[in-house]
């Protein structure tokens, strides 16, 4: 049956014939239309021949954009249905216009307008051009709450991740209206209320309006707080025969009279289950039964301990770990294949895996197995890039401008090991650091590490000597409990000290180094063994509000090397949120160093302290001085120091919280005493030491700014008491990173 094709120019007869042979005329017509290449198809039978008349659609030559600035055409074109070299179809172009508008709305530009036009080209081709007018950014102009008495709008906004637009808008994207993020925020607010005793809390509704003149969204969240509940009577109902409830009572964190806190209930469940599991009831489950008594404003909680199903874990599959190695994940689980299935230990394992910081997301799920009393555990992880390359800038009145480039990898080669390489340059200092840590040395949860460092600091009037220190440390960290850990250290470093000529030319005009310093020139090797006892119960390391951080560091130098001393330092900081968002900090620090063996203590082994002990003093501005000559700039350092500080940090009232400003007032006191170094030198020359041991103290105020460029701090301190010869410095600024 002969087929004649007419009207086609671009699509060859071969292709059209492929659709027509062996099918009815009507079906052939439908197939050809379905390809979308033809605006019109007519199939007819004339004599023995089948005649196919087609009118080809225009073909799209190119898809182009004009007027788009924020979003590139490369990013937009893949999103469209209209494609180059495909047939032009007005319906899909209209759908694409809609699609582009939706993309702009999602990136915070709801005002964008999009139109499309066709440009005719020779030989039946056309260009499809989308014209975009992006309009200004339409972020969230305002988030307000109704029905909230217990907490201010500002406090609730602080809990949310979405923020209001302000002068920083060009830098951030959290002020773009995103329905999913808003839903997640509502959950954050609900958990916040549940933690603060509002067991009946409910989000009544959220109203999101696009405000024309304010060119942005106005969000109003209506809440129903309900009443504040305290904990009523707490009871344990143990349905396992010989599990004594008295001993379990010790583990309950929710005490009668306390404000009801949902997280305390959750933690109690974990502690109770672990306690019961320890007694051999590995399948025990604990669930809370809370019953509200609105009249008395009390929630009575009963913890029900019952025997769970006797199910064992048949197999643990770890999936998705494209970088982290299997054993790095498996060793974090306290349970293995064949062990009893215990929901609480599994939740703890999930939390522990999340704390590793190697994963975007960790999800542990169950899957039934063939035998009824077996379950298969699937751990799905998604690796997160754990390398970070950062350039940091900073300025401090002590060291001038500082720059640091560092390359670190927290999950080196997927082995859970941490590697860090850093180089730093500054006006008066430079340095290099390499550190490697293996968290599971020899299979023990014992972190072994090695650091190699070299630091150079140039002479300045606070320290009239150039010093280059190069060395290395071997360290072993041992966690004793969740909060208490001990690190053992061996360090070997060489310090090379030399005094520039201008400080040695016996010309007091340009400052002269103390005789003690001149005698200490040259290289000294120190070989030192030390321990660090650390207690850390801070709720959040970056900006703590509650908890205690304390460190005790005893050290002995003398296994070889030139200097022999025993040194011990202690530092403890206690944070407490006095009331909403106002944090009180109390700090105590002390230290002592004593020479061992016959020789005097080397001068550079002394403590040289300043603002770190009492704010308002210059570096090395406190402590014993060489007063042989009129020029009293030469600090000699001391062997004993002690100091205390009280500080209160608070949000600045007028400034919107979003800018990240906080204020603080503080009072410091402390002293550095007892120079134990040499006083008589070659040729019988001596130095006169003014070992003034008065208490130095100061009060002051600070401004803290968590700026996009890093944490900055401005301190102003007014010195109350000082010793003559101390060198004060009222204003201090440090920013960027803390070295």
């Amino acid at each position, binding site marked *: 049956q002969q087929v004649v094709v007419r009207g086609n120019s671009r699509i060859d007869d071969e292709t059209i014939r492929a659709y027509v042979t062996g099918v009815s005329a009507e079906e052939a017509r439908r197939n050809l239309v379905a390809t979308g290449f033809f605006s019109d198809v007519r199939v007819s039978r004339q004599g023995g021949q089948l005649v196919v008349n087609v009118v080809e659609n225009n073909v799209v030559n190119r898809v182009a954009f004009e007027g788009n600035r924020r979003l590139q055409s490369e990013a937009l074109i893949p999103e469209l249905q209209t494609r180059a070299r495909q047939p032009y179809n007005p319906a899909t172009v209209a759908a694409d216009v809609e699609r582009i508008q939706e993309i702009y709305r999602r990136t915070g530009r709801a005002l964008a307008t999009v139109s499309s036009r066709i440009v005719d080209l020779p030989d039946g081709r056309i260009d499809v051009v989308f014209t975009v007018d992006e309009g200004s950014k339409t972020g969230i102009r305002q988030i307000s709450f109704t029905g909230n008495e217990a907490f201010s709008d500002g406090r609730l906004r602080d809990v949310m991740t979405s923020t209001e637009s302000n002068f920083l808008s060009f830098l951030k994207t959290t002020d773009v209206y995103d329905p999913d993020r808003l839903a997640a925020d509502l959950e954050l607010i609900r958990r916040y209320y549940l933690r603060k005793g509002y067991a009946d809390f409910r989000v009544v509704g959220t109203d999101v309006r696009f405000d024309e003149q304010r060119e942005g969204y106005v969000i109003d969240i209506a809440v129903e707080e309900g009443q504040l509940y305290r904990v009523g009577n707490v009871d344990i109902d143990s349905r396992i025969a010989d599990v004594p409830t008295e001993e379990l009572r010790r583990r309950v964190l929710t005490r009668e009279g306390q404000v009801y806190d949902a997280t305390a209930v959750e933690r109690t469940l974990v502690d109770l289950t672990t306690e019961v*599991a*320890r*007694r*051999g009831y*590995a*399948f025990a489950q604990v669930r809370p039964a809370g019953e509200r008594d609105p009249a008395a404003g009390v929630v009575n909680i009963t913890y029900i301990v019952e025997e769970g199903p*006797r199910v*064992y874990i048949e197999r643990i599959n770890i999936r998705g770990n494209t*970088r982290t190695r299997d054993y790095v994940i498996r060793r974090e689980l*306290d*349970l*293995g294949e*064949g*062990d*009893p299935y215990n929901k609480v230990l599994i939740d703890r394992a999930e939390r522990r895996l999340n704390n590793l910081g190697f994963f975007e997301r960790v999800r542990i799920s169950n899957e039934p197995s063939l*035998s*009824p*009393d*077996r379950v298969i555990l699937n751990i799905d992880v998604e690796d997160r*890039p*754990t*390398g*970070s*390359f*950062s*350039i*940091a*800038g*900073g300025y401090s009145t002590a060291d001038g401008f500082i720059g*640091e480039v*560092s*390359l670190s*990898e927290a*999950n080196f*080669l*997927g082995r859970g090991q941490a590697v860090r390489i*850093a180089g730093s340059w500054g006006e008066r200092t430079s340095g290099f*650091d390499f550190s490697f840590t293996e968290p599971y040395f020899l*299979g*023990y*949860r*014992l972190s072994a590490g090695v650091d190699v460092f070299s630091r150079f600091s140039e002479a300045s009037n606070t320290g009239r000597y150039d010093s280059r220190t190069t060395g290395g440390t071997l360290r072993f960290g*041992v*966690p*004793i*409990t*969740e909060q208490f850990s001990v690190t053992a250290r061996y360090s070997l470093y060489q310090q090379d000290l030399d005094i520039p000529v201008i400080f040695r030319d016996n010309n007091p005009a340009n400052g002269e180094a103390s005789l003690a310093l001149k005698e200490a020139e040259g290289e000294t090797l120190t070989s030192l063994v030390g321990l660090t006892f650390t207690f850390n119960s801070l709720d959040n390391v970056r900006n703590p509000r509650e908890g205690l951080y304390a460190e005790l560091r005893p050290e002995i130098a003398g296994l070889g090397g030139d200097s022999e001393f025993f040194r011990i330092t202690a530092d403890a900081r206690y944070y407490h949120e006095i009331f909403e968002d106002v944090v009180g900090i109390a700090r105590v620090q002390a230290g002592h160093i004593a020479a061992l063996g016959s020789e005097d203590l080397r001068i550079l082994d002394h403590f040289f302290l300043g603002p770190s002990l009492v704010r308002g003093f210059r570096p090395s501005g406190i402590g014993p001085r060489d007063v042989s000559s009129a020029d009293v700039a030469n600090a000699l350092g001391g062997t004993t120091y002690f100091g205390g500080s009280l500080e209160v940090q608070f949000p600045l009232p007028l400034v919107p919280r979003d800018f990240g400003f906080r204020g603080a007032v503080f009072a410091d006191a402390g002293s550095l005493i007892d120079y134990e170094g040499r006083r008589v030198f070659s040729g019988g020359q001596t130095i006169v030491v003014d070992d003034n041991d008065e208490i130095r103290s100061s009060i002051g105020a600070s401004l803290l700014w968590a700026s*996009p*460029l*890093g*944490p900055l701090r401005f301190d102003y301190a007014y010195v109350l008491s000082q010793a003559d010869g101390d060198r004060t410095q009222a204003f201090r600024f440090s*920013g*960027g*990173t*803390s*070295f």
Partner: protein
Amino acid sequence: CTQTIAPMSEDFQRGYILDEAALEQVTPGMGAQQVLELMGTPSTVSTVGNQSWYYISQTARRRAAFMRQEVVDQRVAAIYFTPQLRVERKALYGLEDGVIFDFISRETPTGGAEQSFVRQLFRGVTSWNPLVGGGS
């Protein structure tokens, strides 16, 4: 048998929770199905011809947070069946039956793309944050 538990150490019930009473009720001649109902699925079965079932129960203790878990108590209940899957005899192996020796450290070599250090490092480095304080 809960010895006095030092404050820092933590005990873990590992493997099958052995119930002496149930083991007592297993008597020679009993059918395999009945043993399953009494004791549950065995921890493992013999390598050849699965005619012997093993219920492996361990208590492991971790003396301090950094230490490894050390097996302090181990009991293996073994139930041997006749070819017609009727209980023939049973045995109980304790920790003292076990022998402590080092496992061979040699491993059968395997292939697969090892991560090259450089490629992995740069693929990993995406949190590029110029200007924001890195800090020690």
